[in-house]
């Protein structure tokens, strides 16, 4: 028997940024900034800690995963809830212009900042115009 409420739950999941069965966690909001020599990706991962964050790059797909343990105050009862607690996951497609060996990650106050340097080839070069 089809679950009548499935579509409602899907919609609620989408509203909350939760990808449900499709992915393994909430989709965190991200800023992507491009400079001449690098890309910067900044993600909000509240509740995660630096040890629970995994960043990987495979086939031009950069994936960020963070495990978040539900941390309810002991003995307390939840009476009002506006955010859900759970793992985060988000993937980005990055071009060949990124140097995979020099990606840096820095986590502070619940925010992950990834710096992806571009390879030498994609940095702007000034082409000299030759004359006879």
């Amino acid at each position: 028997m089809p679950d009548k409420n499935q579509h409602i739950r899907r919609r609620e999941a989408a509203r909350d940024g939760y990808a449900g069965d499709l992915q393994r966690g909430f989709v965190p909001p991200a800023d992507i900034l491009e400079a001449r020599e690098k890309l910067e990706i900044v993600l909000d991962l509240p509740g995660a800690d630096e040890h629970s964050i995994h960043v990987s790059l495979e086939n031009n797909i950069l994936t960020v995963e963070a495990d978040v343990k539900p941390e309810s105050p002991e003995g307390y009862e939840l009476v009002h809830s506006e955010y859900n607690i759970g793992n985060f996951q988000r993937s980005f497609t990055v071009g060949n212009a990124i140097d995979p060996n020099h990606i840096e990650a820095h986590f502070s106050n619940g925010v992950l900042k990834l710096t992806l340097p571009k390879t030498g080839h994609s940095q702007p070069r000034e082409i000299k115009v030759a004359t006879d």
Partner: protein
Amino acid sequence: MNMMDYGYHNPWADVDLVRREMKNLFESLYEDIPRERRRVYPPVNIYTKGQSVIVMAELPGIDPAGIHIFVSDDTLEITGTRGERELRSGEAFHRQERRVGEFRRAIRLPFMVDSERVEAKYKNGIIRISLSRLESAGRKKIEIKTNL
């Protein structure tokens, strides 16, 4: 907290009464604004145990010194600013989903708060504010005298 303390009415239903009313009023005007931006900020979870309340709020990426917490009577107020990354020459945003700017959130609790016993901790982008009910505002058992 036991529901019986307040009779049949759930006091936590009023925490965001104003927000809901405003939301109904303005929702239709702002349908095209991404949800992340029009949502009340910061989102909070509220926990209770006896006469104690813990309010937790997601505030990632803010220097704790820039978060201000005020308590008066039965209201907890959280204010601050979430700074924006300034663009240097040659830089451009491809995507900007993270919320920036000033925020202010007032939360009405179903009792008077003891302002001397408020504690706030910030860790990994989540602030945890512990509050207690003001003793004198609590329920007091009145003895009935007999044999007058």
